């Protein structure tokens, strides 16, 4: 049986029971696999219980694909174990680095998009896909810094990665909005140029002005509802590329499950629109 994934939600421990009881059709949940890399215990039991009802997406933060180093074999093995156990509908990672020379930096760090970086990241993605025996989606990052010396445009870089490795893309519309505002380019133009056919998943999230710098710098904080501007970009994107599994990503300042479900329903309604047009 193939389930059509519509709009999904990030799964938080506070919402396990509500998630388990929720009957919404096409609903799916996304988790960070790093939080479930345990030998046993209630975390895995909860995830397996929810997996028995809803599709799961594994969204990694720890492979550090953009580091100039091979993915940690132990980490990759744990991820492969979780993939076998959960059989996720989607697997994704970031165009970023977080582990470097044995230290984990819990963030998604930037780098100059050089041909050297492209070759290294393509190799790391290929190793990951071979180990997992799955196609993974790579997410466009949020940008805060003006980095001189990018040899590659971000969209060209991502498109080239899909060409070289067969990977897909995870398009985070909030990241596009935040980055466009911070670095001064057009979010509309970026989204129009994005290779839509490679998009396996879409993320929507909230952002906040930086507490020190204000509106000059938006931070991809995942602690607020999706902004109206991001909803508008999303609707335009869907009308161009068609429906894709879409996640409401919320990690902080967590509201109750019903509130998140209402936000998820808004995305589901956007996803229904192209279908009704086609019908």
């Amino acid at each position, binding site marked *: 049986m193939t389930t059509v994934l519509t709009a999904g939600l990030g799964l938080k421990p506070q919402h396990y029971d509500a998630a388990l009881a929720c009957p919404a059709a096409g609903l799916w949940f996304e988790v960070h696999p790093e939080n479930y890399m345990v030998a046993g215990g*209630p975390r895995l039991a909860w995830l397996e219980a929810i997996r028995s009802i809803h599709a799961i997406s594994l969204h990694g933060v720890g492979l550090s694909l953009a580091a100039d180093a091979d993915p940690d074999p132990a980490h990759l093995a744990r991820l492969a174990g979780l993939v076998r156990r959960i059989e996720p509908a989607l697997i994704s990672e970031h165009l970023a680095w977080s582990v470097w020379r044995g230290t984990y930096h819990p*963030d998604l760090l930037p780098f100059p998009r050089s041909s*050297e970086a492209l070759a290294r990241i393509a190799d790391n993605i290929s190793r990951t896909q071979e180990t997992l025996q799955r196609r993974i989606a790579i997410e466009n990052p949020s940008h805060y810094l003006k980095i001189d010396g990018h040899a590659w445009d971000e969209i060209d870089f991502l498109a080239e990665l899909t060409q070289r490795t067969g990977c897909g893309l995870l398009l985070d519309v909030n990241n596009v909005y935040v980055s466009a505002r911070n670095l001064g380019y057009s979010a509309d133009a970026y989204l129009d140029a994005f290779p839509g056919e490679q998009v396996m998943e879409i993320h929507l999230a909230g952002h906040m002005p930086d507490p020190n710098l204000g509106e000059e710098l938006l931070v991809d904080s995942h602690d607020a509802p999706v902004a109206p501007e991001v909803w508008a970009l999303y609707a335009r994107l869907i009308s161009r590329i068609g429906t894709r599994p879409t996640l409401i990503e919320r990690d902080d300042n967590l509201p109750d499950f019903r509130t998140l479900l209402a936000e998820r329903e808004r995305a589901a309604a956007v996803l229904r629109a192209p279908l009704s047009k086609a019908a």
Partner: protein
Amino acid sequence: MQSPIPGALARFQDAFALALRAPEARPAAEIAALAAQPAFAVYRNTVMKGCIDALQANFRAVARIVGEKWFRAAATVYWREAPPTDPAMLDYGISFADFLERFDPAAGLPYLPGVARLDRFWTEAHAAMDHDALDPAAVAGLAPEALAANVLTPHPAARWAWFADGPIYTIWSRNRADQPFDADFDWRPEGALLVRPRDVVEWIALDAAGCAFLDACVAGGTLGKAAQAALQAQDDADLAQLLATLLKAGAFRKYETQ
């Protein structure tokens, strides 16, 4: 393989990682233009906050005792000394109890390292391999002589420790369970046993005999040897009662005849 001569990407990452952790150091040429931008602080703050949040989540009783402000200040010092190595952050803070033992501002709170060890035990028990606990009925029917030659293997989630210096178990359990924490307890040595026979981590106080008994079991000793160890630790130990308590708690996973 990482190339022996770092390429441009590796040099960038060396410089960036150093600037994240040591804001006072002069940034390397590769990233000087980035570290000078106010937005660089977003990365620095996110990395530090992620580590400190993880440590606070992993050491709940310690954080409750010292308060959030003190905890986060101590966690910042710990992070500079021992940043996480693993993206699975449930494991962050393995050396936090040792750190607290030599952390000067904690000198007035001699019970804090012990409390940190029990917080860490909780995490280990929570994430340990699933296994059925040994059914007490399986042992109840055996004659004492037969029992003495058997080996009881501790459950994979079982963690225990004896604290000769003070009532660490009482202090930890009251703070872990968010109970009122006042001075209403005796200052005496205490031990603790944490188990997870099913989904939830459970805990009981355990005397010196019980801790010695489990130490002997995990070393592969027979029940006879474990009983000797228990009596050595505490000559008035009630072995039948001790074994019943451990079995009821779910401290074992199986027993084997030697």
